[in-house]
């Protein structure tokens, strides 16, 4: 997957978890949870969906890397480029 595809994937996952939120103006460098109503339980589901769909394991200590869209892409790129 390219960086752009990874970003799209993350956005699709978020859209599935919180379908009522508008994600079109989500900024890449600001924590996702500051921009949309996404609580810690919803956040966990992003990680669970990555595991379910792509078999990617994100250990608890690394959750912090998924705070913003940009940092998520950077963190996931080496793990998803072969997909």
């Amino acid at each position, binding site marked *: 997957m390219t960086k752009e595809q990874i970003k799209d994937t993350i956005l699709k996952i978020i859209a599935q*978890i*919180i379908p*009522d939120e508008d994600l079109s103006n989500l900024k890449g460098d600001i924590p996702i949870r500051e921009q949309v*109503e996404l*609580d810690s*339980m*919803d956040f*966990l*589901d992003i990680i*669970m969906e990555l*595991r*379910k769909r792509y078999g990617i*394991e*994100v*250990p*608890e200590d690394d959750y912090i890397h998924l705070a913003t869209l940009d940092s998520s892409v950077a963190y996931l790129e080496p793990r998803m480029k072969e997909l």
Partner: protein
Amino acid sequence: MDYDVLIIGAGMSGLAAGIRLAYYGKRVCIVEKHYRVGGLNSFYNLGGHKLDVGLHAMTNYVPKGVKLAPLPKLLRQLKLKAEDFGLCPQQMSVIKFPDKTLRFNNDFDFFVQEVIDNFPRQADNFQKLLKTIFEYDELNLHAKPISAREVVSSIISDPLLSNMIFCPLMFYGNAQENDMEFGQFVIMFKSIFCEGFARPRAGVRRILDVLVKKYKACGGELKMRCAVKSLKCANSKVESILLENGEVLTADRILSSAGYVETMKLLTDYDFSKFNSHAGRLSFVEFILVLSKEPAEMGYETTIVFYNNSDRFDYRRPDGLVDVSSGVICCPNNFQFESPLPEGMIRITNLANFDLWNRLGEEEYKAQKAAWLETTLKEVVKFVPDFRDSIVFTDIFTPKTICRFTGRINGAVYGTPNKTKTGKTHLDNLFICGTDQGFLGIVGAMLSGISMANLHVLQKV
């Protein structure tokens, strides 16, 4: 069989935990000792009538579109839609004490105004209480327990108002006698006053139906009439699970909704003296009355009445079989349904003493049930129109019934007063969810299952 997770009990919390785990690909099995799901919130058929146990109303109701509340949170976590439970909001409920009545519906501002109108001198204090409630983080699993009685009486100087606020919150989810943990108080206050009551037209059956179907659709396994006989422990872990039918299961992790002490009693290294004091002792008797007509035909539109008919409000195990001086009168018909329910019904709940009921012989047990029905009816018709001539069918369950069907020690429906908020036990792979973990009410129970599944299974790689 070997599972990733074994869940003990197919009640609200066990099913919700099961859905989370099965949805995310865990091999999960729920074992339920009863032939019916639901646990403390279940249902039965008797005399051609469909009856519910537990659920009077679902608390935490918010209309579709509200995002930051326990109910939508729960629906998102279980991948369910707002319509799935078919919740219909209440009409109006009341708290009735001698000389004072406070009404409330699902509009919080209405309740605030009721308090101000009835207790004008407490208006500022009540606002102060609300501020304290809203600033408290009731979901912090590591918060130190504090006394709600102390917090509230330090702010509200009129004990009558204080008691009237406590009454519904205690009846609908407090395991502690005479007092309540403040975090629980905040959870209950929000779930009843700030959010509100609703009920599916088909009652608890609808909710359980949705949960079971979802769980199975996610690939979860459900074994009914399948009681756990013992949990074999070694090296600080549960090594295997022995079922009453002789089968042996293994699982990496175990979530038990059977209750804390009840779960400890299943351990092969169980030390009775260590855990017994934790058992809860608050239980209830419930009178279910089927009527020949809709309560609305008698001019009765109230959804739930929380009454107290004495100068004090005692929430504790009574010295007699039943305490009719306070209680809850629920009318399942009086929700905003699209079409009326098939029959009129009134349910009355009073505090009761498990030991005294349990001690009775068969004949005396029956006689006492009949006698207390008379007594409680005499009391409740002071608060609702006299419907006694319209009763066509009666069923009564006691603390003994609750104990028999749910396995709860003392028939304690709200479990132990000492909640295990983190869900952790002294064993590395055994966790508590449901009533004894500490989120109460039906929504709370489901959130408990979800939180514990998230915290102790899904977050662990």
